[in-house]
């Protein structure tokens, strides 16, 4: 990764000629709050669908098509309490397009769209703002329809109501209703004038192209190191049980565990491997026993939120099998405290290494990996692979001893209703 300053912006470039696309990104680093998430989503939608020169969705979209479907998007990710807002533009490698000014046209369209948005007297269009709020509200309401996702979020609401994990990536009705047009305008100014940011470029590009692309910007780059927080360690005193009835044909079971292993913990990679050993592969313990041995579920998977230090395990099961499934999952996790299958650990290592190796084959994955690396791990792919290879069975046992069941959520219904 080549690092240079262009117009006071730190720009990181990865020159790779195997891709047929070129990606440029501006990444803003702000505070991860529910309000910023909502503002970010609304702003992202407005900036990527309208601009001063193309003030309607139709006109903007027509321009996107003229530029060979060169679209840009704004999405967000959080790492701990840092919110990354990524403005990404992906274009076809100009050598594959028979148009002399293609690169310059894309560059102009991108910068005009984000620096000259569709505003009247400095304020975004009330109509666009209301429209995005309405669409977002519908998305929030319709979360109810996806029962797996609904069950997961209900577990988090009950288990960690005041923790960072309960910030909803799709927003909340309350925050959405509170947000005003002037707050959106202020947020836009904050991102583009006060916020820490970095630039990224990946693909078959030249120094000249990178310099030319970022010459249009004027940002201030400050220290973007992630802040470390002393998160409390949770040891649940008792297991909380929550049940909810809806008209579902299959029960949705979610178990929430406290892990106490953060991004920076010495057992971060053992925890990643432990997660894979539980459900990430067809050879994983829970997949083998819950699905293959007992036929209790078609799907069982786990997720670890490292900033919140929470592990969740989710399965679709029949109501009468709930206790049996919970007992099996609990026993398997407890067994890991004393016995770890060395072969399974090796498979998990191979799978994880393969995953990191494959990152090199995808432009956007590489970009996100690089941003994340800059923020937290400070390790390149080879260093990560080396670290993964050093993990041993004893460390997995230690990880298993640091897992505590906190809450069991079960969404059930009457199959015959």
């Amino acid at each position: 990764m080549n690092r240079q300053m262009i117009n006071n912006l730190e720009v990181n470039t990865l020159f790779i000629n195997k891709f047929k696309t070129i990606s440029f990104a501006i990444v803003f680093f702000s505070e991860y709050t529910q309000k910023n998430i909502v503002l970010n989503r609304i702003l992202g939608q407005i900036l990527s669908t309208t601009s001063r020169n193309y003030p309607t969705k139709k006109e903007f979209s027509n321009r996107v098509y003229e530029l060979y479907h060169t679209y840009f998007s704004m999405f967000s990710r959080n790492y701990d309490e840092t919110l990354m807002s990524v403005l990404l533009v992906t274009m076809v490698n100009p050598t594959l397009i028979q148009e002399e000014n293609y690169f310059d046209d894309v560059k102009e369209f991108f910068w005009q769209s984000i620096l000259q948005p569709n505003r009247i007297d400095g304020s975004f269009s009330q109509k666009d703002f209301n429209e995005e709020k309405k669409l977002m509200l519908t998305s929030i309401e319709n979360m109810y329809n996806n029962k797996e996702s609904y069950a997961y979020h209900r577990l988090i609401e009950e288990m960690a109501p005041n923790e960072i994990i309960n910030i909803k990536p799709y927003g909340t009705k309350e925050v959405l209703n509170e947000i005003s047009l002037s707050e959106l305008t202020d947020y836009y100014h904050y991102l583009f004038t006060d916020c820490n940011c970095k630039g990224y470029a990946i693909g078959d590009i030249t120094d000249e192209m990178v310099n030319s692309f970022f010459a249009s910007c004027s940002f201030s780059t400050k220290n973007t190191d992630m802040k470390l927080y002393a998160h409390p360690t949770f040891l649940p005193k008792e297991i909380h049980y929550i049940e909810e009835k809806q008209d579902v044909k299959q029960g949705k079971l979610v178990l929430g565990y406290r892990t106490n292993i953060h991004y920076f913990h010495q057992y971060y990679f053992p925890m990643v491997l432990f997660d894979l050993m539980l459900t990430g592969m067809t050879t994983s313990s829970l997949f083998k026993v819950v699905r293959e041995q007992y036929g209790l579920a078609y799907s069982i998977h786990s997720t670890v939120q490292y900033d919140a230090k929470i592990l969740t395990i989710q399965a679709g099961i029949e109501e009468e099998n709930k206790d049996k499934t919970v007992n099996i999952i609990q026993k398997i996790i407890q067994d890991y405290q004393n016995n770890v299958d060395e072969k399974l650990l090796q498979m998990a290592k191979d799978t994880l290494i393969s995953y990191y190796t494959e990152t090199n084959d995808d432009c956007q994955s590489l970009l996100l990996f690089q941003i994340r690396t800059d923020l937290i791990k400070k390790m390149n792919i080879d260093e990560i692979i080396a670290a993964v290879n050093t993990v041993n069975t004893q460390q997995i046992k230690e990880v298993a001893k640091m897992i505590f069941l906190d809450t069991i959520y079960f969404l059930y219904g009457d199959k015959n209703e």
Partner: protein
Amino acid sequence: MNKVYYPRLNEALYSTVLKNGLKVYMVPKADFQKTYCVFKTDFGSIHTNFIHRDTNEKISFPQGTAHFLEHQMFAMEKNKDAGDYFASLGADSNAYTSYDETAYTVTCTKKQKEVIQFLLDFVQKPCFTAQGIAKEKKIILQEYLMYQDKPNNRLHYDLMNNLYWNDPLKEEIVGNEESIKKINKKILLQAHQFLYHPQNMTLLIVGHLHVEETLQWIMDNQNGKQFSPCPPVDIKTPIELLSIHKEFNQFEMDIFSPYVAYGIKINPHLYKKFNIIKIDYIMKIILEQLFGSSSDTYQELLDQDLISKRFRYYAHITNNSMYIAMQSDSKHPEQLLNYFENKFLNGRRDELQEANFTRIKKGIIGSFIKSMDDVETITHGILDALTLNCDYFNSLDILESITMEDILLVYDVIKNSPHTKVIINPKKVAKKE
């Protein structure tokens, strides 16, 4: 191997047919680290009825047989599992069943020879036990129940049921509770014998690979096996009427706001007029012009609060069946369906304009070139094109050959085709957001 180089994309497709009938395709991607392999049979959920060519005997499989077979193929001797062996090689295996094919997929970054040879081995050697089948039934029933809780899944199959009288598109790929229970070892073995013969199968490898060496591994593996002659069975395709089965249907689910689907049944004989990929592109261009973000309609639908961000439209195009589907959740389901109906029945040819057509074509060209960076997209694009007897990498030339006259001709066909509507209503007022 036969090599076709596509200079515009700087990609090459290698192909050959082995002595046993197996079709092999490869696309090497320079500097990529991942190898993606798909071994597939032209046996999908819609293939349930067959006729023996010699005896004229009719053979029927329960709904969901292709999908059940896909699950069961991973079972190996001594209670071992093919997925475990792939994992021991550091490879990630999976499989899927669609309407018209069953495919086994593996991704790896090392030990390509072992991975490819094992992929061929496990799919060509069934190992079914009554106990294994009984266990798998429980898992598949859970999969079936999982899909019953998904509104989009229910909406799709209800739309198919409205559109089709006899076409098995209306049946769920996984089957149903009754049909799954009927599947047994004899049926699975017979299905494997009929439809997993090398003559009915394709192996496609994309990504990090050396063509000649990889072909040698495949030939070594296949030459070491004996195959019986390909069974003389033909797929029996049910006769489908041109009219729709039902004009309207509605039902309830425990959801927050209603879901709607609008479907148009197109006479599949349209393919006699155009190359099938050409029809696919023409449909995409028409739908984008009428309903895409670059249309007036899209803004109108937003202004009238008729659609959400989940609004989607697509055309299903095969040699045997063609339909257009529009879906969204909507607070005003009847209004939205009426809007669609009016748009198609009273639509004017002048809504389709040359300038938009040219722009959308450029957009599709850009998306296609960008998709060349994704190994999985290339693989499945080639497989889809092969099913339609088309050359995937030649798609851009086909796209560029489309004229405004072609667009208007297909538009007239769409306008005069029968349509149907489905609504899922919320069962009760939701308590939570």
